[in-house]
């Protein structure tokens, strides 16, 4: 159905997409700075970069979701104005967002025709879409039930709906923003097969991902973004993961952290047959058992969405569960009044949550208020039985900020006025300074720059060396490999296996994360 346009475009050989000098600021944040990029037709172009580098912003501009402050867009060699997504769609661009843009209580079919209806009435549009859905399914193997409600199908299927939406609108250029983040490895493989098929048809694909393996596997060219700027564009065949990593963070990456061998002591945390069912009735943890001893770091690896977040949340008292958990031999409540974060803290559990902006900090609170968050009932912070001792707490906070190198070290600034890395240091300062028996850490360095990463890693290891137990959850395999004394891999709500960092490698962990146990296969 799109054959004619393919041949015509190949003949011109102009870049399918060319961006020149794109800049975009969100208030004080410069998300994109003078970015230029060319993507040739019929290729897969990768974009990598740290969290917050500006990848999504750039693609959203190309798709007309945001308006650039400056810059030009050329599609197939023609200068094109893209003031809104309608214009992008007309120019043959389709985008699958990092966070899907689907209407939960609409059917697949309704979502597909939304905005691309053929007339004032729905009936003919729906009939037509149903027909072409069957055709697309045949062509690409994208199977979904057109009458299913979005809220009733899994994320993998939802992503297919997004891709179908783009194809239904006859997209020639397809942008995928971190499509594999939510997919199981099998689903990811399937997605890549579809992308290869699309490429063979002459479509142009832009793929945003954090995973170097995916870049190396499927892209033709790759661009690297850092802090809103485009730092390099290279042919995939002429680069290596190491080089890309270096380009991404701006200097040589230390893949290892200096640390002494662990001297594990007594068991601190014991988890047995932990189960969690979420609000939608989906079982997220399907019987987790693990233990963490004093003076060791247990790293939990896994693709996002396999239950690691829920594990941390249960241990941190943020959601109820069933099973047994004990701290230093004493069991803790998993439901009811005594299962909240404050009870956990009183039992010596500190928690650096995965999402510092929405969980770890109150962005509108001053730093000093944030530095007692969760511990505000502590007698140390009270002036008397009724009132809190604000000035004393502020002074304490200033000292903590000094020790954790929070910049600027002013406790009266609100949390939102610190950069991401410094916000994370605030959380760490609060949790580590409490000298807990067990520290739960989720994604400690997400969106944090390399200097801060090193500092944070050092603090975590220092705590370990002080004889504390640490449970680390991270999607960054490098971080897991370099910090952990033992590694547990989670898949689909279960622990797939445990390995020692010295006796494993990324390939084996990757397989485990994909739900494949190399030992039993």
């Amino acid at each position, binding site marked *: 159905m799109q054959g004619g346009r393919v041949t015509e475009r190949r003949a011109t050989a102009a870049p399918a997409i060319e961006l020149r000098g794109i800049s975009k600021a969100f208030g004080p944040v410069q998300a994109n700075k003078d970015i230029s990029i060319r993507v040739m037709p019929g290729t897969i172009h990768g974009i990598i970069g740290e969290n917050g580098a500006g990848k999504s912003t750039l693609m959203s501009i190309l798709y007309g*979701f945001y308006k650039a402050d400056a810059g030009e867009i050329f599609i197939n060699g023609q200068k094109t104005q893209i003031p809104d997504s309608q214009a*992008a769609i007309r120019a043959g661009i389709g985008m699958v967002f990092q966070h899907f*843009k689907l209407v*939960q*209580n*609409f059917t697949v079919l309704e979502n597909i025709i939304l905005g691309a209806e053929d007339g004032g*009435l729905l009936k003919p549009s729906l009939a037509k879409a149903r027909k072409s859905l069957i055709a697309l399914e045949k062509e690409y193997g994208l199977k979904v039930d057109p009458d299913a409600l979005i809220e009733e199908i899994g994320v993998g299927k939802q992503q297919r709906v997004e891709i179908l939406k783009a194809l239904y609108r006859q997209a020639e250029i397809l942008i995928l923003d971190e499509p594999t983040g939510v997919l199981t490895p099998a689903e990811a493989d399937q997605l890549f097969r579809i992308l290869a098929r699309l490429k063979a048809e002459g479509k142009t694909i832009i793929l945003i991902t954090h995973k170097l393996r995916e870049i190396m596997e499927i892209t033709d060219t790759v661009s690297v973004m850092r802090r809103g700027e485009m730092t390099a564009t290279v042919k995939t065949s002429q680069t290596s993961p190491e080089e890309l990593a270096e380009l991404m963070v701006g200097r040589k990456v230390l893949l290892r952290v200096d640390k002494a061998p662990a001297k594990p002591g007594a068991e601190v945390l014991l988890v047995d047959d932990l189960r969690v069912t979420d609000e939608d009735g989906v079982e997220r943890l399907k019987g987790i058992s693990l233990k963490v001893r004093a003076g060791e770091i247990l790293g939990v690896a896994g693709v996002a969405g396999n239950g690691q977040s829920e594990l941390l949340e249960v241990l941190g008292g943020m959601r109820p569960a069933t099973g047994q958990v004990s701290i230093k031999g004493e069991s803790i409540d998993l439901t009811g009044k005594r299962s909240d974060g404050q009870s956990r803290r009183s039992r010596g559990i500190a928690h650096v949550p995965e999402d510092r902006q929405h969980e770890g900090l109150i962005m509108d609170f001053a730093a000093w208020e944030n530095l007692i968050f969760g511990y505000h009932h502590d007698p140390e912070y009270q002036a008397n039985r009724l009132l809190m001792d604000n000035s004393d707490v502020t002074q304490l906070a200033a000292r903590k900020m000094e020790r954790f190198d929070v910049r600027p070290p002013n406790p009266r600034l609100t949390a939102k006025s610190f950069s991401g890395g410094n916000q994370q240091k605030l959380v760490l300062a609060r949790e580590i300074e409490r000298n807990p028996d067990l520290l739960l850490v989720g994604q400690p360095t997400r969106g944090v720059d390399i200097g801060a990463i090193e500092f944070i890693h050092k603090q975590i290891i220092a705590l370990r060396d002080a004889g504390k137990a640490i449970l680390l959850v991270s999607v960054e395999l490098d971080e897991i490999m370099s910090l952990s004394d033992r590694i547990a891999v989670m898949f689909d709500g279960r622990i797939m296996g445990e390995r020692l960092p010295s006796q494993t490698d990324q390939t084996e962990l990757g397989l485990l994360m994909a739900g494949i146990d190399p030992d039993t296969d």
Partner: protein
Amino acid sequence: MDFTTLLLVLDSTVRLATPLLLACLAGLFSERAGIFDIGLEGKMLMAAFFSAAVAYATGNVWLGLLAGIASSMALSAIHGLASITFRGNQLISGVAINFLAAGVTVVVAQSWFRQGGRTPSLEGASRFNPIELPLAESLSGVPLLGPIYHELVSGHTVPVYAAFAAVPLTWWILFRTRFGLRLRAVGENPESVDTAGVSVIGLRFAAVAIAGLLCGIAGAYLGTALQAGFVKDMTAGRGFIALAALIFSKWRPWHALYATLLFGLLQAIAVRFQNIDLGGFVIPVQFMEALPYILTVVILAGFVGKAIPPRAGGEPYVKER
């Protein structure tokens, strides 16, 4: 209760349900598009005054209706400006609009008519008069159906029939047209609409404007059909009962009809019977008056099926923080 009394109560139910129904459908359009509207009351009140005032001045009820609609839509525009363009709090905006209408109507009425905040009484062509449907008189002799047709179906004013016609129309627009699909989508997930290349702002303004239109008709009905002129605060909480009915109906057009008829019936009963004596047990009139609100709280509490509002409801659409 004998048959005639029943018919009369039902007849009165239809009359009293009409403004509730129109306002409820107005809220339905707005809230389905993600804009909460607790300003139904104010818009109706504004329309009641301006329709009565203009109908009085021109002697033409249709001009009055237009003026009522225009004034109600002006308030809609303020609500849109506040909650769509400037992403303000929709609830606060609604509260402000209710006060604005309560104040402006009286201030202007006093300034124009000097009658203590009311309009002079309307007569003849400056009011909506009852329409006799064909054959109503001649069929009234037919047992059962005759009186029902004559008393209940026939003999209402134009806005009453318009309100009842608006129910299937609303259903059809929402569920059978492109506009309806987009409108519902924008109330559930505005980003889905935005990324499909359709203007969120445009859709929401359209929805709010329709709400203004319907509230305008509701207000005009109060001022020029149910009543012969405007009196201060004449909506008397009907906007909030309509809101209650909207929740009661879980944002669905046909259910809105049933809910408003139920609430209309409660009002009709409360009007007629001060206290209802159920053989020793007396239901005070105050209880009947409060019943719509009590029922709504019960529904909201989720004891009788949960009322889930449109997911994006109440949230301004913010792309860039």
